[in-house]
């Protein structure tokens, strides 16, 4: 979670880690999840919030959040 907090996130979807020099590009929903994770929200809360706000059912949202988090983990961002 530490590395997540340091990230510099640009509104257009460019993510930079000042500690390591790594950068990423992220799409709008990815950006949305990233920000909520940064605020300390858990995966389930994020999925519910996303399902309420976006045109997506809860089940898909939950699957996608889990998948996204796995991807963040593979980048050692979590």
């Amino acid at each position: 979670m530490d590395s997540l907090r340091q990230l510099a996130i640009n509104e257009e979807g460019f993510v930079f880690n000042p500690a390591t020099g790594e950068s990423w590009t992220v799409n709008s929903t990815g950006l949305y999840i990233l920000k909520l994770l940064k605020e300390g929200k858990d995966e389930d809360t994020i999925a519910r919030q996303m399902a309420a706000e976006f045109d997506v059912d809860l089940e898909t949202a939950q699957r996608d959040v889990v998948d996204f988090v796995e991807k963040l983990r593979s980048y050692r961002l979590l």
Partner: protein
Amino acid sequence: MDVVVGITGINAIDNPGPGIGIAKSLKEDPELSVQIVGLAYDAMEPGIYMDWIVDSAFLLPYPSGDYRAYLERLRYIRAQTGLNFLFPVLDAELPLYIKYQKALEAEGIRTFLPSLEQYKLRGKDRLEEVAQTIGITAPRSAVVTSYEELARAAEDIGFPLMVKGVFYKAYKAFSLPEAASYYSKIAAEWGYPIIVQQVVTGEEMNVVAAGDGNGNALGMVGIKKTWITELGKIWTGVTIKNDRLLAAAQAFIERYRWKGAFELECIVDLENDTVYLIEINPRFPAWSYFATGVGVNIAANIVRSALGLPVTVADYEPGKLYIRFTDDFVVDMDVFQKMMLRGERR
């Protein structure tokens, strides 16, 4: 005359592409008012950031992908910048541009390239034929597709020898096991056939030139590399006037009615007065600015010829030196972010 010229190969790195040299050459033509559109395949190509030479920059899809997507991207760039001439300079993209040169021209993007038949002359399996036609020689070579043939050819030619792909890669081998390992390395990456070639000794000399497609030269300069990097790239060089070498380049332009830029790589055996043709590059070399620097602006002549403007083919002096040097500069991250997110810098 306003010309908006797209140039690829703006990767001015330790193994530089030819793009920046061409861009500098065009900017030096006093009568042409040229806007340079840098065309890159990676957001980290230095040319993207060199805004004193490259006026705007765009990323292109890889030529290995769908050609329709590639053409669509060029259409977009033309709409944004008014692009009306394009210099493709990288080996991997030339087949695409050669095949679609007419389609591009119909859309207002001119190129100045050889035909597919002419382009095939660069194959290393055609080297001996071309060398003979233009009055020089080529190292003995054999086309092989199996280890048995490799062994037979090696016995014939003797060690050391060069193991080469038809279009890419070349290694010097001193023994059969070494040759076999290069053979499989090239075959795995670039496929068959593999060329086995005699190593010839002498002075390495090169010519950069261009033909207008009707048998006339648009400029020609002979050079010798005097210092090369570990990657084999020129660091310093000197202009030369070797008659046989220049006559061969002239013959190449006349006999094949070559259209566009090219480079002949040769080894000149001064003791036996033999010029060996080692390679034909159907494009500008990375050091093409050398020619411009001695007064022979080949790139500008190509653009002029394509636009029907007068062309002056100047002569040059032997004994001029070429010095490449390193330089560096610092930019903010925003151009990089734009290239990553939008694929363009304007």
